[in-house]
C-alpha cells in the first residue's frame, strides 16, 4: 500500500531522515515513536505525498510519487485518511460539513452519504455537535471530528500524527479505541506518538508493530515496551 525504500529527506541543508525503508501492508497496525524533532511528522508527510523524498522512493498504492503530478497525489490522498495533532478545519463550515468535506471535493456530497454520515457522527460521539462550528469544539471533539473526516471516504490507510497530543487520558483512550476499531475493519493504521502508554494499551488489543526513529533512521522497537 505505502512503501518507502531507502528514503532520505533533507531540509535547509540538513538531512532529517536517512535510508528509511518501511512497508505498510494492508490491515497492519504501526506505531512510530521517537523524541520530538526526530522526524515523525516528516515521515508521515512523506507517506501521503505532502513531501517528496530527496533520495529513495516512496510508492503510494504502487505508484512512485515522483511520477505523480499534484492532481494525481490529490486523488491518491482520498485513499489515505490523515489526522494531525493540530487539526485544521474550515471555520465557516459546520462540523458535519467539515466531516463531509472529503466527499464534497471528490464530487460526492455529504447529503448523499445520509445515514452513513449520521452513523459516523454517532461512532465518534459527535451527533449532538453536528451543527456546531469548529471553534466551538473542545480538543477531544476536534480530534474525533478529524478522525471522522479522515475515514468518511473509507480510506485504505489512516495516518494519525500525535492524535492524542492535545487531549486528556480518557479521551486518548477513546480515540485509541476508534483507531483499533478501524484496524479491525481492515484499515491500515499508522500512529505517530511519543506516548508509550498508548502503545502499551493498544498492544493489548491488536498486534502492532512499533517503529522508532532515532539518529535520522528507523529501527524496529518493542523490547523496551
Amino acid at each position, binding site marked *: 500500500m505505502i512503501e518507502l525504500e531507502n528514503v532520505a529527506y533533507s531540509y535547509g541543508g540538513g538531512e532529517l531522515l536517512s535510508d528509511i525503508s518501511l512497508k505498510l501492508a494492508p490491515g497492519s497496525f504501526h506505531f512510530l515513536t521517537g523524541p520530538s524533532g526526530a522526524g515523525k511528522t516528516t515521515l508521515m508527510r512523506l507517506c501521503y505525498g505532502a513531501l517528496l523524498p530527496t533520495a529513495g522512493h516512496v510508492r503510494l498504492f504502487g505508484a512512485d510519487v515522483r511520477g505523480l503530478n499534484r492532481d494525481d497525489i490529490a486523488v491518491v490522498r*482520498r485513499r489515505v485518511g490523515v489526522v494531525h495533532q493540530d487539526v485544521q478545519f474550515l471555520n*465557516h463550515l459546520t462540523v458535519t460539513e467539515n466531516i463531509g468535506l472529503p466527499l*464534497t471535493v471528490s464530487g460526492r456530497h455529504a447529503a448523499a452519504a445520509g445515514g452513513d454520515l449520521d452513523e459516523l457522527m454517532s461512532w465518534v460521539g459527535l451527533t449532538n455537535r453536528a451543527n456546531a462550528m469548529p471553534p466551538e469544539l473542545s480538543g477531544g471533539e476536534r480530534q474525533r471530528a478529524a478522525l471522522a473526516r479522515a475515514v468518511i471516504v473509507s480510506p485504505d490507510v489512516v495516518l494519525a500524527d500525535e492524535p492524542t497530543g492535545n487531549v486528556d487520558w480518557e479521551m486518548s483512550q477513546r480515540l485509541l479505541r476508534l483507531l483499533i476499531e478501524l484496524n479491525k475493519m481492515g484499515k491500515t493504521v499508522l500512529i505517530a506518538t511519543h506516548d508509550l502508554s498508548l502503545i502499551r494499551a493498544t498492544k493489548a488489543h491488536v498486534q502492532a508493530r512499533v517503529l522508532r526513529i532515532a539518529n535520522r533512521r528507523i529501527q524496529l522497537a518493542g523490547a523496551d515496551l
Partner: protein
Amino acid sequence: MKFDLATLRALIAGDHHADRVVPPSGFTAQLTVFAAAAMAFLAVFALALSLAAGRLADRWGEELARSATIRIVAPMDQRAAQTDAALRILETTKGVAAARALTDAEQQALMAPWFGPELALETLPVPRLIEVIEDTDGMDPAGLRLRLAAEVPGAVLDDHSRWRAPLVQAASRLRLLGLVSIVLIAAAVAAMITLAANAALAANAQVIAVLRLVGATDDYIALAFIRRFTLRALSGAAVGAVLGMVAVLLLPSASENGGFLTGLGFQGAHWLWPFFIPVLAAGVAFVATGSAARRTLRELA
C-alpha cells in the same frame, strides 16, 4: 487548469457545496463588485463614444464624398451666363446625379452667421455656388476641372477632398480612442481582479491546505475561487452597464445645433452592444483569477 466545455459547464452550473468551501470574504467581494461596476459604467461611455465617432466618420465620409461645389467667380454681368454654361456641362458629365445653382436666399442663409440676415447680396462680389450631387459611380473630378477650365473660366470645382480627409481621419481616431479605452478598462479590471484574487488566495492558505489534505485537486480549488470572482465581476459589471445605459439614455437627444456631443448615444442595434460588457468583464475575471489561482497553488505546493 484547462479551459474546456466541462470547465465552462461547471462554471455556469455551479456547485453549491463546492462554492461553500471558499469562505465569504467581505472586503475583496465588495471591492470586486464595485470596481467591476465602475469600470462597466465607464466602458459604456467609451463604447458610446466609439460608436458615435464611427457613425460620424461614416456620415462625413459618405455625405462629403457624394457631393461637390462649383464656385462661379466672374464679373457680375457674366456670372449668370457662366453659371448656365457650367450647369450644361454638368448635365452631360458622367457620374453627376444632380446639379443646381443655389438661390440668393440660400446663399444669404449660408452667410448669415457671419454677416447677419440683412445682407444685401447683390452689393457684394459673392460667387455663385452650384451644388453637385454625384451618383453611386461617382464623377471624375480631374476631367470635369479640365472641361470647366476650357468652357467656364470663372468656375472652380471643390470636391471637398481637401477637408474631408482630415475630418474623417479625426472621427476615425476618436473611434479608435474609444476602443483603446475599452481595452484599457478591461486591463484595469484584470489587474484589479488579479490583486483581489491574490489577496483572497493568500488569506485562504489554510483553507487550501485543508482542501488538499482531504484530496481536493488544484482544478477543484481554483474553480471555487474562479467561479466566485467571475460571478462578482459579472454582477458588478451588469449593474454598472445598466446604470451607464440609463445615463446615456438621459443625455440630450441628437440635434443639428448640438452637433457631435448630443449624438453621443446608441442607435438601433447598437443598444445591444453594452450587454456584452458584463460578459467581457466575466471573461476577464475568469482568466485573471485562473492565472492568479494557478500561480498561488503552485507556490503553496
